[in-house]
């Protein structure tokens, strides 16, 4: 198996719900707690497995805002694992999940240097490296209903921008979606072969903003109402 995520950049609304759900689940999960530093202070900071950034692609007026969630990509060629001197970082043979053994990590930060995607964060309270576990303590849980055996971020996403599945199976939903929607990997030139894939935004007609022609009756009515009604 090669488990990972597909993230649909076409529909992600940048609500950060996945990051919150991730933090909630993993704070008490296998590598918890995820320490916060000064959570109510002037400079709040802390450990997160999942971060969402927003970018503007293109230039006004032909531009688009893209919300960009990133967590560990569970790379096939994970240099974070090969550089780790203690053996705390490992990639599971059975499902490809990359994990950090909290009992072995010495907090040297070397693995975070080797990760291009900023997926690893040191927890200053425990002195150990923490990262996305792909909710390994959830996806196999026999006590959960089958449809709930998915990472917390995937279950919570209100826009259904996240999918979880096995990339080794060419007919799995994730493999098919990546095929059909030209899903891609980030920074392929570094050769890490990340498992997580991103779906590009679908092509959409630009919304015209200039030379709109003569306004129709509806437009005239709108302009009239806007003039009459003072806000």
């Amino acid at each position, binding site marked *: 198996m090669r488990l990972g995520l597909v993230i649909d950049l076409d529909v992600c609304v*940048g609500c950060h719900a996945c990051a919150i759900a991730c933090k909630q689940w993993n704070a008490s999960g296998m590598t918890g707690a995820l320490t916060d530093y000064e959570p109510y202070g002037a400079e709040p*900071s802390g450990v997160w497995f999942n971060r969402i950034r927003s*970018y503007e*692609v293109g230039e006004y007026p032909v531009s688009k805002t893209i919300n960009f969630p990133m967590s560990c990509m569970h790379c096939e060629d994970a240099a974070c694992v090969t*550089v780790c001197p203690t*053996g705390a970082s490992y990639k599971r043979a059975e499902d490809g999940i990359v994990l950090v053994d909290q009992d072995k990590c010495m907090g040297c930060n070397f693995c975070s240097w080797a990760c*291009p995607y900023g997926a690893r964060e040191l927890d200053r309270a425990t002195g150990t490296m923490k990262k996305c576990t792909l909710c390994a303590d959830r996806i196999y849980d026999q006590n959960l209903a089958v449809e709930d055996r998915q990472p917390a971020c995937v279950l919570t996403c209100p826009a259904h921008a996240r999918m979880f599945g096995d990339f080794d199976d060419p007919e799995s939903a994730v493999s098919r979606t990546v095929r059909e929607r030209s899903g891609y990997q*980030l920074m392929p030139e*570094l050769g890490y072969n990340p498992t997580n894939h991103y779906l590009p935004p679908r092509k959409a007609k630009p919304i015209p903003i200039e030379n709109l022609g003569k306004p129709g009756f509806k437009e005239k009515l709108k302009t009239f109402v806007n003039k009459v009604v003072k806000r």
Partner: protein
Amino acid sequence: MHPAFSVIFFTVSSGAGLGLFALLVLADLFKLGGGLSSQALLMPGILAIFLVGGGFLSSVFHLANPKNSWRAVMRFRTSWLSREGVFGLLFFPFASIYLGLAWLAPESWLPVRYVFGIVALLLSWAAIFSTGMIYACLKTIRQWNTPLTPANYLALGHFSGVLLLLAFLPQENQGLFVFLAIALLAVAAFLKAIYYFWIVAPHISSTINTATGFNRAKVKLLDQGHTHGTFLTQEFGFQVARKYRLILKAIFFLIAFVYPLMILIGNPTQGGMVIATISALLGLVVERWLFFAEARHVVNLYHGAQRC
């Protein structure tokens, strides 16, 4: 990259110690400059072991979780950090036994002493090389991912080592070592100059476009998604203005190469050599600081950098 002082101290100190020890063994094996007496071997040898030991200690305290540091030898097969640890740890017994034999053992033990010396020599080369490879093996940092990195570590380690050795030698014994020091200085300065020209030359590198996958349009960061710094911004966000980098490079070349060279060519006294050595070591601290400060990790692309 954030320049952590413990790592700067570690690499400068252990590099100088290992370089010094390698040169001591070479001088002993090949009778360089007429060979060093066992007394002349002893003091610099002990200093070398202390420099390496002090460096290793400082690197252990740099860890966030030092109690697991013994595990660092576990992944010798894949990790350069692990290899550095193993070579460094093995260096201590071999180096100490070699020195002990030089001090106490009778002449007939010479072959045994040489065997320990050669092993310590190979281990010190392997350890310096591994230190360089820790940085050079990272594909995420273009400025480090080059054969120049281990070459620089080896050259600077031996250069600072030969200066330390000269600081121990009385003026009449310096002879050949002065020439050796000038040669090593030339190699180190030349390699470092190549490196500095190389990192500012235009490169094909990762960009914000390859990082996000939007290759056909301009990409601009709108929101980092956090209100204050994170581990990523603290560890990788560090930057210095170009102007200060240039000034620091000039200072480094002056105090690490130009001043020691002036002392070396002017028939150096032992006192002069001590000052030149201290000056060079301070220069290497500046060099190491810059080595970190100039490195740009690709994760900065996600925080808005256009290229790395």
